[in-house]
């Protein structure tokens, strides 16, 4: 493959990402200057100085990114992906194509205008499991050519001859592969997913903050307003990201489509930023089935796929492969895409004796709040909090589940939301069990298993189960060799 550069638009995007706040200040300065000119007076010295300073900073960043773009070449040579940089410091990053675990295409609104795509490459490595390894912006032909070449190499169909990007028709290659549609979600189903996957705890917190702010404002006198207003504003600002994420969920999952092509699945969604994930199933470490609290009331769940190397922004930590559907529909989808992760049997629930250590743990936290509120404020608030904590303990006990199969295990945890992870023993890295004086006396323990994943999914806790289960898990991990 010939050496190529990223599209020029990446220079503007990098500059903007780095210093968007300075650009914003520059724009405000221009507006101030225009206001002065409109009033037929010369802009003040401070405004002129600000304009010059901000412009200089923007130009420095722009020129830096321009030189970086000019000196960076990307190409594929036999079975390696190479990124060469020849600035003041030279670097040559070489990655074996076989170690690329995912190749994803993304196109936000800005990129749509210029008909470019961002191609995201993730490497099969625990060292970089928490970030996307390469983000490259190309025009549509080059982006699809890169993606299709890497995917066909991973499929083992690539010949040793170099392929000219100009000679490839990206659309004709995609037509040859022809992915099989598995499921797509209508406007109504996406809205349902957004509403029912709204964070319950986050919603309670946001509602509580707003109510507390309103009560504090109306119950205090005017002099106190000057003191408490900044605190109230800070609390409200803390609520804004949660509200923003909840409201933009629809834009994120608009036109959700799941397709399968050979041993890969393709997930695409997004209104303004269209994302396309191509996930090789042989690099899948685990599947996660999630049930947010509201969705549990309607018996709906959605699925996430844990693929080694995935992980930059929070939504990319474990990409969703299916929005909220009934459990049997989700299992049929899993049967089509990854039958090795299907859950054939019902899970084992925690024994009744597990209720005691769980309630003790939650009760201790509740007691701390009860004592604190009794001493410093109103005792009945502490009592309400203690009751809520005990309720959480009961919900936590009811949610826990574990099932050991011949080649895999499934673990269910959660309090309000329910999360079930299914992983094969060969993908588990280590296991631990933990017991205290009470749980030891009851013959139960709780523990964790670790998989190769980003931090959010690396360590997975297991509830209280008989000690023998944990010995069996350890034995199964040892007897199943890891799959590379």
């Amino acid at each position, binding site marked *: 493959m010939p050496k190529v550069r990223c599209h020029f638009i990446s220079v503007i995007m990098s500059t903007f990402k780095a210093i968007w706040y300075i650009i914003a200040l520059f724009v405000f300065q221009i507006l101030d200057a225009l206001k002065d000119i409109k009033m037929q007076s010369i802009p003040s010295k401070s405004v002129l100085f600000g304009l010059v300073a901000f412009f200089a900073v923007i130009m420095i960043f722009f020129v830096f990114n321009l030189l970086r773009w000019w000196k960076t070449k990307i190409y594929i040579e036999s079975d390696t992906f190479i990124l060469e940089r020849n600035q003041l410091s030279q670097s040559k990053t070489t990655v074996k194509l076989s170690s690329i675990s995912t190749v994803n295409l993304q196109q936000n609104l800005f990129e749509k205008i210029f008909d470019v795509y961002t191609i995201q490459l993730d490497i099969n490595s625990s060292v970089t499991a928490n970030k996307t390894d390469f983000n490259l912006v190309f025009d549509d032909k080059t982006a699809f050519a890169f993606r299709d070449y890497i995917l066909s190499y991973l499929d083992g169909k690539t010949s040793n001859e170099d392929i000219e990007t100009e000679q490839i028709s990206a659309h004709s290659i995609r037509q040859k592969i022809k992915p099989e549609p598995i499921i797509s979600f209508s406007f109504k189903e996406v809205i349902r997913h957004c509403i029912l996957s709204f964070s319950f705890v986050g919603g309670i917190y946001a509602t509580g903050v707003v109510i507390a702010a309103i009560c504090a404002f109306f119950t205090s006198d005017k002099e106190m307003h000057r003191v408490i207003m900044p605190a109230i504003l800070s609390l409200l600002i803390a609520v804004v990201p949660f509200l923003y994420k909840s409201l933009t969920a629809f834009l994120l999952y608009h036109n959700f489509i799941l397709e399968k092509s050979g041993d890969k699945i393709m997930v695409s969604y997004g209104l303004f930023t269209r994302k396309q994930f191509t996930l090789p199933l042989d690099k899948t470490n685990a599947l996660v089935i999630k049930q947010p609290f509201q969705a549990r009331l309607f018996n709906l769940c959605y699925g996430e796929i844990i693929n080694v190397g995935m992980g930059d922004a929070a939504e990319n930590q474990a990409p969703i492969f299916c929005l909220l559907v009934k459990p049997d529909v989700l299992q049929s989808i899993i049967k089509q895409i990854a039958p090795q992760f299907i859950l054939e049997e019902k899970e084992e629930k925690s024994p009744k004796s597990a209720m005691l250590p769980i309630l003790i743990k939650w009760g201790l936290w509740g007691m701390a709040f009860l004592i604190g509120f009794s001493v410093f404020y109103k005792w009945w608030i502490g009592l309400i909090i203690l009751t809520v904590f005990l309720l959480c303990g009961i919900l936590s006990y009811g949610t826990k589940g574990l099932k050991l199969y011949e080649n895999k295990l499934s673990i269910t945890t959660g309090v309000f939301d329910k999360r079930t992870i299914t992983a094969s023993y060969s993908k588990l*890295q280590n296991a631990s*069990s*933990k*017991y205290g*004086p009470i749980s030891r006396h009851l013959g139960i323990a709780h523990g964790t298993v670790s*998989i190769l994943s980003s931090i959010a999914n*690396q360590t997975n806790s297991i509830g209280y189960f008989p000690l023998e289960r944990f010995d069996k898990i*350890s034995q199964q*991990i040892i007897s199943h060799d*890891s799959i590379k």
Partner: protein
Amino acid sequence: MNLEYKCLNKKAKSCMRLSSIIGNVILLTILGIIRAFCYFGDVLLPGWVDLIFAIIILLCVLQIIFAPIIRYKRYKYYIDDERLVVIEGLWFITKTTAPIERVHQIAIERGPIDRMYGLSKVVATTAGGNVDIKFLENQIAEEIAENLGIRIGTIVKEQRSDQNA
């Protein structure tokens, strides 16, 4: 399955005790400074604050005396060709198991207190996190690290020959 676990050298107990003393002294110093600020700054505190402070001091003393004995008694480890198992804890006992085949890196670490007693920590890294064997004599730590390193190398060679076949 009954495994023959190994115990730590007696020096580990003294090392644990010294670490415990240092940790508790730092905690009590911070609390003492806060208490002194309140006293000299004429900040009135309820009477039970001093009672709680006295209880914390008592607990720290008990922890320094008894915690190392219990932790030393409970700390066990086991290594063979297949697995690495570590059992440790004070109130809550944790048993961690890692297959040798999943370990891809071995390191030896020695903190300042470890060096005073001639002890080391062997850190076995898997893709899902670390498994540590602490308070080992330097020579034993070196032997374990070398044996694990040879074992990992053998496993990698076997895997490569399987792939080539």
